[in-house]
Protein backbone atom coordinates (compact mmCIF):
# COMPACT_ATOMS: atom_id res chain seq x y z
CA UNK A 1 0.00 0.00 0.00
CA UNK A 2 1.31 3.45 -0.91
CA UNK A 3 2.07 6.04 1.76
CA UNK A 4 -0.94 8.10 2.87
CA UNK A 5 -1.40 11.63 1.58
CA UNK A 6 -2.13 13.01 5.05
CA UNK A 7 -1.14 11.36 8.28
CA UNK A 8 -1.52 12.62 11.84
CA UNK A 9 -0.04 10.88 14.85
CA UNK A 10 -0.86 11.59 18.51
CA UNK A 11 -2.01 15.08 17.64
CA UNK A 12 -2.70 17.19 20.74
CA UNK A 13 -4.06 20.71 21.19
CA UNK A 14 -4.12 21.95 24.76
CA UNK A 15 -5.70 25.17 25.92
CA UNK A 16 -4.28 25.46 29.42
CA UNK A 17 -5.17 22.28 31.26
CA UNK A 18 -7.93 21.41 28.79
CA UNK A 19 -7.02 19.13 25.91
CA UNK A 20 -9.38 20.03 23.05
CA UNK A 21 -7.65 17.39 20.93
CA UNK A 22 -6.08 14.58 22.86
CA UNK A 23 -3.93 12.16 20.87
CA UNK A 24 -5.57 11.89 17.46
CA UNK A 25 -4.09 9.63 14.77
CA UNK A 26 -5.53 9.02 11.32
CA UNK A 27 -4.56 8.80 7.66
CA UNK A 28 -6.17 10.03 4.45
CA UNK A 29 -5.11 8.35 1.19
CA UNK A 30 -5.03 10.20 -2.14
CA UNK A 31 -8.51 10.43 -3.67
CA UNK A 32 -10.41 9.13 -0.65
CA UNK A 33 -12.81 10.69 1.84
CA UNK A 34 -12.24 10.34 5.55
CA UNK A 35 -15.14 11.69 7.59
CA UNK A 36 -14.41 13.09 11.02
CA UNK A 37 -17.71 13.00 12.89
CA UNK A 38 -18.67 14.21 16.33
CA UNK A 39 -20.79 16.66 18.27
CA UNK A 40 -19.92 20.22 19.20
CA UNK A 41 -16.85 20.32 21.41
CA UNK A 42 -15.54 16.96 20.19
CA UNK A 43 -12.38 18.58 18.76
CA UNK A 44 -13.10 17.77 15.11
CA UNK A 45 -12.78 21.36 13.85
CA UNK A 46 -9.52 21.96 15.75
CA UNK A 47 -8.16 18.70 14.35
CA UNK A 48 -8.96 19.79 10.79
CA UNK A 49 -7.26 23.13 11.32
CA UNK A 50 -4.16 21.52 12.80
CA UNK A 51 -3.80 19.41 9.66
CA UNK A 52 -3.18 22.66 7.74
CA UNK A 53 -1.40 24.34 10.66
CA UNK A 54 -4.06 27.02 10.81
CA UNK A 55 -3.99 26.04 14.47
CA UNK A 56 -0.55 25.17 15.85
CA UNK A 57 -0.51 21.70 17.46
CA UNK A 58 0.74 21.42 21.05
CA UNK A 59 2.38 18.08 20.23
CA UNK A 60 2.18 15.21 17.77
CA UNK A 61 2.93 14.83 14.08
CA UNK A 62 1.33 15.92 10.82
CA UNK A 63 2.79 14.52 7.60
CA UNK A 64 1.53 15.56 4.20
CA UNK A 65 2.86 13.64 1.21
CA UNK A 66 5.85 12.59 3.26
CA UNK A 67 6.68 16.10 4.50
CA UNK A 68 6.72 16.92 8.21
CA UNK A 69 4.28 19.83 8.20
CA UNK A 70 5.23 21.05 11.69
CA UNK A 71 8.87 21.63 10.71
CA UNK A 72 8.06 23.86 7.71
CA UNK A 73 9.02 27.53 7.61
CA UNK A 74 6.60 30.20 6.41
CA UNK A 75 7.54 29.96 2.73
CA UNK A 76 7.43 26.16 2.57
CA UNK A 77 4.11 26.22 4.43
CA UNK A 78 2.70 28.58 1.79
CA UNK A 79 3.81 26.16 -0.93
CA UNK A 80 2.13 23.34 0.95
CA UNK A 81 -1.15 25.27 1.10
CA UNK A 82 -1.30 24.97 -2.68
CA UNK A 83 -1.86 21.28 -2.15
CA UNK A 84 -4.07 21.45 0.92
CA UNK A 85 -7.11 23.70 1.12
CA UNK A 86 -9.98 24.27 3.52
CA UNK A 87 -13.62 25.24 3.03
CA UNK A 88 -15.49 26.53 6.09
CA UNK A 89 -19.08 26.21 7.32
CA UNK A 90 -20.03 29.81 6.71
CA UNK A 91 -18.68 31.18 3.43
CA UNK A 92 -19.57 34.72 4.52
CA UNK A 93 -16.67 34.53 6.99
CA UNK A 94 -14.08 33.48 4.42
CA UNK A 95 -15.12 35.58 1.42
CA UNK A 96 -14.08 39.25 1.66
CA UNK A 97 -17.29 41.22 1.19
CA UNK A 98 -15.62 43.93 -0.91
CA UNK A 99 -14.09 41.53 -3.45
CA UNK A 100 -16.00 40.44 -6.53
CA UNK A 101 -16.53 36.70 -7.12
CA UNK A 102 -14.05 36.68 -10.02
CA UNK A 103 -11.29 38.25 -7.93
CA UNK A 104 -12.03 35.90 -5.04
CA UNK A 105 -11.57 32.87 -7.28
CA UNK A 106 -8.52 34.38 -9.00
CA UNK A 107 -6.75 35.17 -5.74
CA UNK A 108 -5.19 31.71 -5.34
CA UNK A 109 -4.18 31.59 -9.01
CA UNK A 110 -2.40 34.94 -8.60
CA UNK A 111 -0.83 34.31 -5.19
CA UNK A 112 0.68 31.03 -6.30
CA UNK A 113 1.65 32.28 -9.76
CA UNK A 114 -0.33 29.51 -11.45
CA UNK A 115 -1.34 31.68 -14.41
CA UNK A 116 -1.41 35.34 -15.39
CA UNK A 117 -3.55 37.82 -17.30
CA UNK A 118 -6.04 36.43 -19.77
CA UNK A 119 -5.07 32.87 -18.98
CA UNK A 120 -5.82 33.40 -15.29
CA UNK A 121 -9.18 34.89 -16.22
CA UNK A 122 -9.99 31.95 -18.47
CA UNK A 123 -9.12 29.57 -15.63
CA UNK A 124 -11.32 31.50 -13.23
CA UNK A 125 -14.27 31.23 -15.65
CA UNK A 126 -13.70 27.51 -16.14
CA UNK A 127 -13.67 27.05 -12.34
CA UNK A 128 -16.97 28.88 -11.97
CA UNK A 129 -18.52 26.62 -14.58
CA UNK A 130 -17.03 23.57 -12.96
CA UNK A 131 -18.76 24.38 -9.66
CA UNK A 132 -22.04 25.12 -11.46
CA UNK A 133 -21.98 28.93 -11.46
CA UNK A 134 -22.63 31.06 -14.53
CA UNK A 135 -19.44 32.98 -15.50
CA UNK A 136 -21.42 36.26 -15.39
CA UNK A 137 -21.49 35.89 -11.61
CA UNK A 138 -17.77 36.82 -11.61
CA UNK A 139 -18.83 40.47 -11.50
CA UNK A 140 -21.03 40.06 -8.42
CA UNK A 141 -20.21 40.57 -4.75
CA UNK A 142 -20.69 37.73 -2.24
CA UNK A 143 -23.72 39.35 -0.58
CA UNK A 144 -25.52 39.32 -3.94
CA UNK A 145 -25.41 35.51 -3.99
CA UNK A 146 -27.46 32.86 -2.18
CA UNK A 147 -25.89 30.74 0.56
CA UNK A 148 -25.48 27.81 -1.82
CA UNK A 149 -23.86 29.99 -4.48
CA UNK A 150 -21.46 31.46 -1.92
CA UNK A 151 -20.42 27.99 -0.84
CA UNK A 152 -19.79 27.11 -4.53
CA UNK A 153 -17.55 30.19 -4.76
CA UNK A 154 -15.63 29.02 -1.69
CA UNK A 155 -15.19 25.62 -3.36
CA UNK A 156 -14.04 27.19 -6.65
CA UNK A 157 -11.58 29.28 -4.67
CA UNK A 158 -10.15 26.17 -3.02
CA UNK A 159 -9.94 24.32 -6.37
CA UNK A 160 -8.13 27.20 -8.08
CA UNK A 161 -4.77 26.05 -6.74
CA UNK A 162 -5.42 22.41 -7.75
CA UNK A 163 -5.14 20.90 -4.28
CA UNK A 164 -4.69 17.20 -3.55
CA UNK A 165 -6.65 17.47 -0.30
CA UNK A 166 -9.51 19.70 0.81
CA UNK A 167 -10.61 19.92 4.44
CA UNK A 168 -14.39 20.45 4.41
CA UNK A 169 -15.50 21.78 7.79
CA UNK A 170 -19.30 21.42 8.14
CA UNK A 171 -19.59 22.98 4.70
CA UNK A 172 -23.29 22.26 4.23
CA UNK A 173 -24.59 22.74 7.78
CA UNK A 174 -25.80 26.26 7.05
CA UNK A 175 -27.53 25.30 3.78
CA UNK A 176 -31.08 24.16 3.14
CA UNK A 177 -31.49 20.47 2.51
CA UNK A 178 -32.27 20.81 -1.23
CA UNK A 179 -29.21 23.02 -1.76
CA UNK A 180 -27.10 20.85 0.54
CA UNK A 181 -27.73 17.93 -1.81
CA UNK A 182 -26.55 20.00 -4.82
CA UNK A 183 -23.31 21.05 -3.12
CA UNK A 184 -22.52 17.55 -1.86
CA UNK A 185 -23.10 16.06 -5.30
CA UNK A 186 -20.69 18.66 -6.67
CA UNK A 187 -18.05 17.57 -4.12
CA UNK A 188 -18.47 13.93 -5.17
CA UNK A 189 -18.21 14.80 -8.89
CA UNK A 190 -15.05 16.84 -8.25
CA UNK A 191 -13.53 13.90 -6.44
CA UNK A 192 -14.22 11.66 -9.42
CA UNK A 193 -12.93 14.11 -12.03
CA UNK A 194 -9.94 15.48 -10.12
CA UNK A 195 -9.05 12.69 -7.69
CA UNK A 196 -9.18 15.04 -4.68
CA UNK A 197 -9.03 13.64 -1.17
CA UNK A 198 -11.39 15.08 1.47
CA UNK A 199 -11.12 15.33 5.20
CA UNK A 200 -14.86 15.77 5.66
CA UNK A 201 -15.78 17.17 9.07
CA UNK A 202 -19.46 16.79 9.92
CA UNK A 203 -21.98 16.13 12.67
CA UNK A 204 -24.42 14.56 10.22
CA UNK A 205 -24.07 10.78 10.01
CA UNK A 206 -26.62 10.41 7.23
CA UNK A 207 -24.62 12.77 4.99
CA UNK A 208 -21.37 11.03 5.90
CA UNK A 209 -22.79 7.63 5.01
CA UNK A 210 -23.43 8.81 1.44
CA UNK A 211 -19.93 10.04 0.68
CA UNK A 212 -17.27 8.73 3.07
CA UNK A 213 -14.90 5.84 2.43
CA UNK A 214 -13.86 5.74 6.05
CA UNK A 215 -15.22 7.30 9.22
CA UNK A 216 -13.51 8.40 12.46
CA UNK A 217 -15.82 9.16 15.39
CA UNK A 218 -14.56 11.80 17.82
CA UNK A 219 -15.63 12.46 21.37
CA UNK A 220 -14.00 14.79 23.89
CA UNK A 221 -10.86 15.21 21.83
CA UNK A 222 -10.31 11.55 21.05
CA UNK A 223 -11.17 9.18 18.23
CA UNK A 224 -13.31 6.50 19.85
CA UNK A 225 -13.79 4.40 16.73
CA UNK A 226 -12.59 4.45 13.14
CA UNK A 227 -12.86 2.19 10.12
CA UNK A 228 -14.68 1.64 6.83
CA UNK A 229 -17.89 3.70 6.58
CA UNK A 230 -20.15 0.68 6.11
CA UNK A 231 -18.61 -1.00 9.13
CA UNK A 232 -18.62 1.97 11.53
CA UNK A 233 -22.13 3.12 10.61
CA UNK A 234 -23.60 -0.32 9.90
CA UNK A 235 -22.09 -2.33 12.76
CA UNK A 236 -20.57 0.13 15.23
CA UNK A 237 -18.44 -1.28 18.02
CA UNK A 238 -18.26 1.70 20.33
CA UNK A 239 -21.17 2.56 22.59
CA UNK A 240 -20.88 6.26 21.71
CA UNK A 241 -21.14 5.58 17.96
CA UNK A 242 -24.31 3.60 18.66
CA UNK A 243 -25.71 6.52 20.69
CA UNK A 244 -24.96 8.95 17.86
CA UNK A 245 -26.64 6.68 15.33
CA UNK A 246 -29.70 6.22 17.53
CA UNK A 247 -30.10 10.00 17.97
CA UNK A 248 -29.72 10.57 14.23
CA UNK A 249 -32.55 8.10 13.64
CA UNK A 250 -34.85 9.88 16.15
CA UNK A 251 -36.60 6.66 17.03
CA UNK A 252 -37.25 5.60 13.46
Amino acid at each position, binding site marked *: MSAPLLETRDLVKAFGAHRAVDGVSFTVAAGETLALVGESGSGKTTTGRMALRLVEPTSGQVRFDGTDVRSLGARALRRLRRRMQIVFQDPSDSLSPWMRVGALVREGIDVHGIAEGAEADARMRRLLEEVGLRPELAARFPHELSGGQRQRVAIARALAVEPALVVCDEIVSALDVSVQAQVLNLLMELQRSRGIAYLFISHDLAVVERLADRVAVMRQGRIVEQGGAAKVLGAPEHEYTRTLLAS*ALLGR
Partner: protein
Amino acid sequence: MPALLEVRDLRTSFVTPSGIARAVDGASFDVGTGESVALVGESGAGKSVLATSLLGLVPPPGRITGGTIRFEGHDLAALGPGSLRDLRGRRIAMIPQEPATAFDPLRRVGDQVAEVARAHGERSRAVAARRAVTMLARVGLPDPERSARSYPHELSGGMRQRVLIAMALLLEPAFVLADEPTTALDATVRAGILDLLRRLQRESGTSLLLITHDLAVVEATCTRALVMYAGQIVEDAPVVDGVVSPAHPYTRGLLASLPRIGDGRGPFRAIQGMVPAATAWPTGCRFRERCDVAIARCTIEEPLLLARQQGGAARCHLAGGGEAASPAFGASVSGSGR
Protein backbone atom coordinates in the same frame (compact mmCIF):
# COMPACT_ATOMS: atom_id res chain seq x y z
CA MET B 1 -66.82 24.12 15.40
CA PRO B 2 -64.03 26.51 14.45
CA ALA B 3 -60.46 25.37 14.86
CA LEU B 4 -58.33 26.80 17.68
CA LEU B 5 -56.27 28.76 15.16
CA GLU B 6 -57.65 29.72 11.75
CA VAL B 7 -55.42 31.55 9.32
CA ARG B 8 -56.98 32.71 6.07
CA ASP B 9 -55.19 34.27 3.11
CA LEU B 10 -52.59 35.90 5.35
CA ARG B 11 -50.31 38.41 3.64
CA THR B 12 -47.25 40.06 5.14
CA SER B 13 -44.93 42.27 3.08
CA PHE B 14 -41.74 44.23 3.49
CA VAL B 15 -40.66 47.24 1.49
CA THR B 16 -37.07 46.56 0.35
CA PRO B 17 -34.66 48.43 -1.96
CA SER B 18 -35.39 45.88 -4.68
CA GLY B 19 -39.18 46.13 -4.39
CA ILE B 20 -42.01 44.83 -2.21
CA ALA B 21 -41.11 41.44 -0.73
CA ARG B 22 -44.31 39.42 -0.33
CA ALA B 23 -42.80 37.13 2.32
CA VAL B 24 -46.17 35.62 3.26
CA ASP B 25 -48.48 35.75 0.28
CA GLY B 26 -51.84 34.15 0.86
CA ALA B 27 -51.24 31.51 3.55
CA SER B 28 -54.29 29.59 4.84
CA PHE B 29 -54.35 26.81 7.42
CA ASP B 30 -55.94 25.57 10.66
CA VAL B 31 -54.50 24.13 13.83
CA GLY B 32 -56.97 22.19 15.97
CA THR B 33 -57.05 21.80 19.76
CA GLY B 34 -54.38 19.39 20.99
CA GLU B 35 -52.89 18.99 17.53
CA SER B 36 -49.21 18.84 16.82
CA VAL B 37 -48.51 20.43 13.45
CA ALA B 38 -45.24 21.23 11.69
CA LEU B 39 -44.56 24.25 9.54
CA VAL B 40 -41.78 23.16 7.19
CA GLY B 41 -39.86 25.17 4.66
CA GLU B 42 -36.44 26.22 3.48
CA SER B 43 -34.94 29.63 4.13
CA GLY B 44 -36.78 32.26 2.13
CA ALA B 45 -40.05 30.32 2.17
CA GLY B 46 -41.61 32.74 4.66
CA LYS B 47 -42.03 30.54 7.71
CA SER B 48 -40.38 32.91 10.19
CA VAL B 49 -42.38 35.87 8.90
CA LEU B 50 -45.53 33.77 9.18
CA ALA B 51 -44.62 32.97 12.79
CA THR B 52 -44.04 36.61 13.73
CA SER B 53 -47.32 37.50 12.00
CA LEU B 54 -49.22 35.02 14.17
CA LEU B 55 -47.72 36.58 17.28
CA GLY B 56 -48.32 40.16 16.13
CA LEU B 57 -44.57 40.74 16.21
CA VAL B 58 -43.72 41.48 12.57
CA PRO B 59 -40.59 43.64 12.66
CA PRO B 60 -40.85 46.97 10.83
CA PRO B 61 -40.84 47.81 7.95
CA GLY B 62 -42.81 44.55 7.64
CA ARG B 63 -46.59 44.77 7.81
CA ILE B 64 -49.59 42.45 7.64
CA THR B 65 -51.40 43.63 4.52
CA GLY B 66 -54.26 41.19 4.28
CA GLY B 67 -56.10 38.12 5.52
CA THR B 68 -57.30 37.09 8.96
CA ILE B 69 -55.91 35.27 11.99
CA ARG B 70 -58.59 33.93 14.32
CA PHE B 71 -57.53 32.42 17.63
CA GLU B 72 -60.13 30.96 20.01
CA GLY B 73 -62.66 32.89 17.95
CA HIS B 74 -60.93 36.29 18.35
CA ASP B 75 -59.63 38.22 15.37
CA LEU B 76 -56.04 38.87 16.46
CA ALA B 77 -55.70 41.85 14.14
CA ALA B 78 -58.60 43.60 15.89
CA LEU B 79 -56.97 43.31 19.34
CA GLY B 80 -55.06 46.27 20.72
CA PRO B 81 -51.39 45.84 21.65
CA GLY B 82 -52.28 45.43 25.35
CA SER B 83 -54.78 42.58 24.86
CA LEU B 84 -52.44 40.95 22.35
CA ARG B 85 -49.59 41.07 24.85
CA ASP B 86 -51.82 39.50 27.50
CA LEU B 87 -52.85 36.77 25.07
CA ARG B 88 -49.22 36.05 24.28
CA GLY B 89 -47.73 34.24 27.21
CA ARG B 90 -51.10 33.33 28.74
CA ARG B 91 -52.88 31.62 25.83
CA ILE B 92 -50.21 31.67 23.13
CA ALA B 93 -46.59 30.93 24.01
CA MET B 94 -43.44 30.80 22.02
CA ILE B 95 -40.34 28.64 22.36
CA PRO B 96 -37.49 30.48 20.64
CA GLN B 97 -34.68 28.96 18.63
CA GLU B 98 -31.58 30.20 20.34
CA PRO B 99 -31.27 29.21 24.00
CA ALA B 100 -28.06 31.25 24.23
CA THR B 101 -29.68 34.64 23.60
CA ALA B 102 -33.17 34.21 25.03
CA PHE B 103 -32.15 34.84 28.64
CA ASP B 104 -31.05 37.76 30.72
CA PRO B 105 -27.50 36.57 31.51
CA LEU B 106 -27.42 38.38 34.86
CA ARG B 107 -30.53 36.86 36.45
CA ARG B 108 -31.07 33.42 37.92
CA VAL B 109 -33.13 31.16 35.65
CA GLY B 110 -35.70 30.43 38.39
CA ASP B 111 -36.43 34.16 38.69
CA GLN B 112 -36.80 34.42 34.93
CA VAL B 113 -39.31 31.57 34.88
CA ALA B 114 -41.19 33.06 37.87
CA GLU B 115 -41.27 36.41 36.08
CA VAL B 116 -43.63 34.88 33.49
CA ALA B 117 -46.18 34.14 36.24
CA ARG B 118 -45.72 37.58 37.83
CA ALA B 119 -46.11 39.37 34.51
CA HIS B 120 -49.48 37.65 34.08
CA GLY B 121 -51.02 38.44 37.45
CA GLU B 122 -49.39 36.27 40.12
CA ARG B 123 -49.03 38.70 43.05
CA SER B 124 -47.05 36.51 45.43
CA ARG B 125 -43.33 36.25 44.81
CA ALA B 126 -43.16 33.00 46.82
CA VAL B 127 -45.99 31.36 44.85
CA ALA B 128 -44.40 32.39 41.55
CA ALA B 129 -41.06 30.96 42.68
CA ARG B 130 -42.70 27.68 43.73
CA ARG B 131 -44.49 27.39 40.41
CA ALA B 132 -41.19 27.97 38.62
CA VAL B 133 -39.47 25.15 40.52
CA THR B 134 -42.39 22.76 39.90
CA MET B 135 -42.24 23.56 36.20
CA LEU B 136 -38.45 23.10 36.06
CA ALA B 137 -38.97 19.64 37.56
CA ARG B 138 -41.59 18.83 34.92
CA VAL B 139 -39.21 19.67 32.07
CA GLY B 140 -36.62 17.33 33.53
CA LEU B 141 -34.06 19.60 35.14
CA PRO B 142 -32.03 17.65 37.68
CA ASP B 143 -32.29 19.08 41.21
CA PRO B 144 -34.81 21.78 40.19
CA GLU B 145 -34.33 23.81 43.42
CA ARG B 146 -30.66 24.19 42.67
CA SER B 147 -31.14 24.66 38.91
CA ALA B 148 -33.53 27.53 39.68
CA ARG B 149 -30.68 29.30 41.47
CA SER B 150 -28.31 28.85 38.48
CA TYR B 151 -27.40 31.55 36.01
CA PRO B 152 -28.03 30.76 32.31
CA HIS B 153 -24.35 30.24 31.51
CA GLU B 154 -24.11 27.57 34.20
CA LEU B 155 -26.53 25.34 32.28
CA SER B 156 -25.84 23.35 29.09
CA GLY B 157 -27.57 24.27 25.82
CA GLY B 158 -30.03 21.40 26.23
CA MET B 159 -30.87 22.42 29.82
CA ARG B 160 -31.39 26.05 28.76
CA GLN B 161 -33.77 24.85 26.05
CA ARG B 162 -35.68 22.91 28.74
CA VAL B 163 -35.95 26.10 30.81
CA LEU B 164 -37.35 27.94 27.78
CA ILE B 165 -39.94 25.18 27.41
CA ALA B 166 -40.78 25.60 31.11
CA MET B 167 -41.29 29.34 30.60
CA ALA B 168 -43.52 28.74 27.58
CA LEU B 169 -45.71 26.14 29.31
CA LEU B 170 -45.88 27.69 32.78
CA LEU B 171 -49.25 29.37 32.23
CA GLU B 172 -50.73 26.34 30.43
CA PRO B 173 -51.24 28.06 27.08
CA ALA B 174 -53.66 26.63 24.54
CA PHE B 175 -51.20 27.11 21.72
CA VAL B 176 -47.41 26.86 21.61
CA LEU B 177 -45.33 28.04 18.71
CA ALA B 178 -41.85 26.49 18.71
CA ASP B 179 -39.36 28.04 16.29
CA GLU B 180 -36.61 25.56 15.37
CA PRO B 181 -36.34 24.51 19.04
CA THR B 182 -33.62 21.91 18.38
CA THR B 183 -31.60 23.44 15.55
CA ALA B 184 -28.88 24.81 17.83
CA LEU B 185 -28.52 21.51 19.71
CA ASP B 186 -26.45 18.37 19.20
CA ALA B 187 -28.26 15.29 17.93
CA THR B 188 -27.99 13.39 21.21
CA VAL B 189 -29.61 16.33 23.05
CA ARG B 190 -32.18 16.96 20.30
CA ALA B 191 -33.89 13.60 20.78
CA GLY B 192 -34.46 14.32 24.49
CA ILE B 193 -35.94 17.76 23.83
CA LEU B 194 -38.33 16.39 21.19
CA ASP B 195 -39.43 13.62 23.58
CA LEU B 196 -40.10 16.23 26.24
CA LEU B 197 -42.10 18.45 23.87
CA ARG B 198 -44.19 15.51 22.72
CA ARG B 199 -44.85 14.34 26.26
CA LEU B 200 -45.82 17.76 27.63
CA GLN B 201 -47.96 18.50 24.61
CA ARG B 202 -49.90 15.26 25.10
CA GLU B 203 -50.23 15.65 28.87
CA SER B 204 -51.53 19.19 28.72
CA GLY B 205 -53.57 18.97 25.50
CA THR B 206 -51.81 22.05 24.16
CA SER B 207 -51.65 22.63 20.42
CA LEU B 208 -48.17 22.80 18.97
CA LEU B 209 -47.03 24.52 15.81
CA LEU B 210 -43.43 23.46 15.29
CA ILE B 211 -41.44 25.50 12.79
CA THR B 212 -38.55 23.57 11.34
CA HIS B 213 -36.53 22.90 8.23
CA ASP B 214 -35.79 19.38 9.46
CA LEU B 215 -38.19 16.73 8.16
CA ALA B 216 -36.77 14.15 10.56
CA VAL B 217 -37.96 16.35 13.44
CA VAL B 218 -41.40 16.64 11.81
CA GLU B 219 -41.75 12.89 11.51
CA ALA B 220 -40.70 12.31 15.10
CA THR B 221 -43.01 14.94 16.57
CA CYS B 222 -46.03 15.90 14.45
CA THR B 223 -49.14 14.39 12.89
CA ARG B 224 -49.36 16.85 10.02
CA ALA B 225 -46.87 18.95 8.05
CA LEU B 226 -47.73 22.32 6.51
CA VAL B 227 -45.16 22.77 3.77
CA MET B 228 -44.36 26.35 2.88
CA TYR B 229 -42.86 27.50 -0.39
CA ALA B 230 -42.60 30.99 -1.88
CA GLY B 231 -44.86 32.60 0.72
CA GLN B 232 -47.68 30.06 0.49
CA ILE B 233 -48.71 26.79 2.06
CA VAL B 234 -48.20 24.37 -0.84
CA GLU B 235 -49.13 21.22 1.01
CA ASP B 236 -50.84 20.00 4.14
CA ALA B 237 -49.34 16.52 4.32
CA PRO B 238 -50.41 13.88 6.82
CA VAL B 239 -47.68 12.09 8.79
CA VAL B 240 -48.62 8.42 8.58
CA ASP B 241 -46.82 5.98 10.89
CA GLY B 242 -44.05 8.51 11.47
CA VAL B 243 -43.49 9.21 7.77
CA VAL B 244 -44.55 12.33 5.84
CA SER B 245 -46.88 11.25 3.04
CA PRO B 246 -46.34 13.76 0.20
CA ALA B 247 -48.50 14.68 -2.81
CA HIS B 248 -46.75 17.90 -3.91
CA PRO B 249 -43.57 17.56 -6.02
CA TYR B 250 -41.78 20.04 -3.74
CA THR B 251 -42.52 17.99 -0.63
CA ARG B 252 -41.45 14.85 -2.48
CA GLY B 253 -38.22 16.58 -3.52
CA LEU B 254 -37.51 17.74 0.02
CA LEU B 255 -38.02 14.25 1.38
CA ALA B 256 -35.82 12.75 -1.33
CA SER B 257 -32.99 15.20 -0.73
CA LEU B 258 -32.93 14.39 2.98
CA PRO B 259 -30.27 11.71 3.49
CA ARG B 260 -31.22 8.97 5.90
CA ILE B 261 -29.10 6.53 7.84
CA GLY B 262 -29.12 3.18 6.06
CA ASP B 263 -29.32 4.65 2.54
CA GLY B 264 -25.75 3.56 1.83
CA ARG B 265 -23.27 5.28 -0.47
CA GLY B 266 -24.21 7.28 -3.52
CA PRO B 267 -25.25 10.63 -4.90
CA PHE B 268 -27.80 12.86 -3.17
CA ARG B 269 -31.13 13.62 -4.82
CA ALA B 270 -31.21 17.37 -5.14
CA ILE B 271 -34.02 19.73 -6.15
CA GLN B 272 -32.67 21.75 -9.06
CA GLY B 273 -32.47 25.54 -8.89
CA MET B 274 -33.23 27.64 -5.83
CA VAL B 275 -36.03 29.40 -3.97
CA PRO B 276 -37.11 32.46 -6.01
CA ALA B 277 -36.90 35.98 -4.54
CA ALA B 278 -39.88 37.25 -2.53
CA THR B 279 -39.86 40.44 -4.62
CA ALA B 280 -40.69 38.50 -7.80
CA TRP B 281 -42.58 35.25 -7.23
CA PRO B 282 -43.01 33.35 -10.53
CA THR B 283 -46.42 33.47 -12.22
CA GLY B 284 -48.50 30.31 -12.43
CA CYS B 285 -47.22 27.64 -10.05
CA ARG B 286 -44.38 29.14 -8.01
CA PHE B 287 -42.50 25.85 -7.96
CA ARG B 288 -42.78 25.07 -11.70
CA GLU B 289 -39.23 26.20 -12.62
CA ARG B 290 -37.76 23.66 -10.22
CA CYS B 291 -40.40 20.97 -10.76
CA ASP B 292 -39.54 17.86 -12.77
CA VAL B 293 -43.17 17.02 -13.64
CA ALA B 294 -44.45 20.50 -14.57
CA ILE B 295 -46.86 20.76 -17.54
CA ALA B 296 -47.93 23.71 -19.70
CA ARG B 297 -50.89 24.47 -17.41
CA CYS B 298 -48.48 25.14 -14.51
CA THR B 299 -47.08 28.18 -16.35
CA ILE B 300 -50.41 29.86 -16.98
CA GLU B 301 -52.63 28.90 -14.08
CA GLU B 302 -51.77 29.21 -10.42
CA PRO B 303 -52.93 26.04 -8.62
CA LEU B 304 -55.17 26.33 -5.53
CA LEU B 305 -54.63 24.51 -2.27
CA LEU B 306 -57.17 21.72 -2.76
CA ALA B 307 -58.23 19.04 -0.28
CA ARG B 308 -57.34 15.52 -1.38
CA GLN B 309 -59.57 12.48 -0.99
CA GLN B 310 -56.68 10.59 0.59
CA GLY B 311 -56.39 13.31 3.26
CA GLY B 312 -54.37 16.49 3.38
CA ALA B 313 -54.30 19.16 0.68
CA ALA B 314 -51.91 20.20 -2.06
CA ARG B 315 -51.39 23.25 -4.25
CA CYS B 316 -50.55 21.33 -7.45
CA HIS B 317 -52.43 20.64 -10.71
CA LEU B 318 -51.02 17.12 -10.70
CA ALA B 319 -51.68 16.18 -7.09
CA GLY B 320 -54.96 14.46 -7.90
CA GLY B 321 -57.43 16.86 -6.29
CA GLY B 322 -59.95 15.59 -8.88
CA GLU B 323 -63.64 16.44 -9.01
CA ALA B 324 -64.17 15.85 -5.32
CA ALA B 325 -61.61 18.50 -4.53
CA SER B 326 -62.68 21.56 -2.63
CA PRO B 327 -60.65 24.53 -1.46
CA ALA B 328 -58.89 23.55 1.72
CA PHE B 329 -59.58 25.68 4.83
CA GLY B 330 -62.76 27.29 3.56
CA ALA B 331 -63.19 29.62 0.64
CA SER B 332 -60.21 31.82 -0.07
CA VAL B 333 -60.83 35.36 1.13
CA SER B 334 -59.27 37.90 -1.14
CA GLY B 335 -56.65 40.16 0.41
CA SER B 336 -58.62 43.24 1.36
CA GLY B 337 -55.82 45.11 3.05
CA ARG B 338 -56.26 46.94 6.27
